[in-house]
């Protein structure tokens, strides 16, 4: 595979920048110094879910998922819906675990370290799927040398 052109690289970087800005805003939406724990839990849970879905998408479509960072942000937003509701004056309830185990996700043994491991496995699953499944149908692979 040839190196990406400058325009491709810029396009990727612009997506990264948008995602970073969105995540900073989500982080700021938590108001106190202990917020990082909650932000990180829901980011890792959301990102892990997104990566598993992206792996499934790649498996069936035989190409990498488009806009991967958008999948991650959307899943993170979904996971933290109860926290947005809390800012609006709605206390948490157990049914809010529908949002990617919003409450129980904080209480897994090992806390966020466990979620980091889950994230690592989910990322591995996605990248391996991209490598094996998408590469098998990559036209560039079929091109003559």
């Amino acid at each position, binding site marked *: *595979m040839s190196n990406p052109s400058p325009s491709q690289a810029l396009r990727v970087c612009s997506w990264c920048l948008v995602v970073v800005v969105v995540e900073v805003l989500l982080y700021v939406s938590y*108001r*106190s*110094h*202990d917020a*990082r*724990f909650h*932000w*990180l839990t829901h*980011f*890792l849970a959301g990102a892990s879910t997104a990566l598993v879905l992206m792996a499934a998408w790649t498996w069936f479509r035989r*190409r*990498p998922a488009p806009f991967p960072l958008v999948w991650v942000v959307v899943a993170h937003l979904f996971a933290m819906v*109860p*926290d947005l509701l*809390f800012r609006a*004056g*709605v*206390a*948490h*309830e*157990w049914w809010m675990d529908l949002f990617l185990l919003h*409450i129980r996700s*904080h*209480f897994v043994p090992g*806390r*966020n*370290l466990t979620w*980091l491991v889950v*994230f*690592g496995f989910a*990322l*591995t699953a996605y*990248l391996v799927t*991209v*490598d094996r499944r*998408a*590469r098998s149908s*990559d036209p*560039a*692979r079929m091109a003559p040398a």
Partner: protein
Amino acid sequence: MVPTRRALVTVWLAAVVAMGAVLVVSRSTQTPGDDVDPARQRPGILDLGPLPVAAPTELADVLAPGQPTVVFFAGSQAADLCAELPDAGLDGVALVVVATGADACRPGVGVLGSSGREAAEAFGLPSRRDGGIPVGYVIVDSAGQIRYRTLDPSVVGLLDEVATMVDAL
């Protein structure tokens, strides 16, 4: 176009190292006044873990029977807390401040003049990371049951959260 295998490995390493760094930063920003277990601090849900449990009978005289009560453990923030409580949106709720030097809260707010360590233990408030005098609050419902308890070193600036939790009773 499918990325090279080296690019995929680079992505994996960059993402995991970055998130690991965020994890380390999130742990390093905990303060001595925070809960040993960050999951228990400001969880935002009633009846977590062993709750509800009956409020300690030896402190029954600071509670208001038939009315929800919020017991604040103010530590050294008593003066600031007392100044904010009238505008905290906690009408119809009995308020108790446990702290030395909380006389400025009177009238209208019950005051238990002690450091709060023994009362905090009686209410089952979690321990601070440094073992110091806890800052946080306990919500007791009108039936005398403890429904919510948390450390919150920033409670003075987050009184609207207290009102949210009281509304959920």
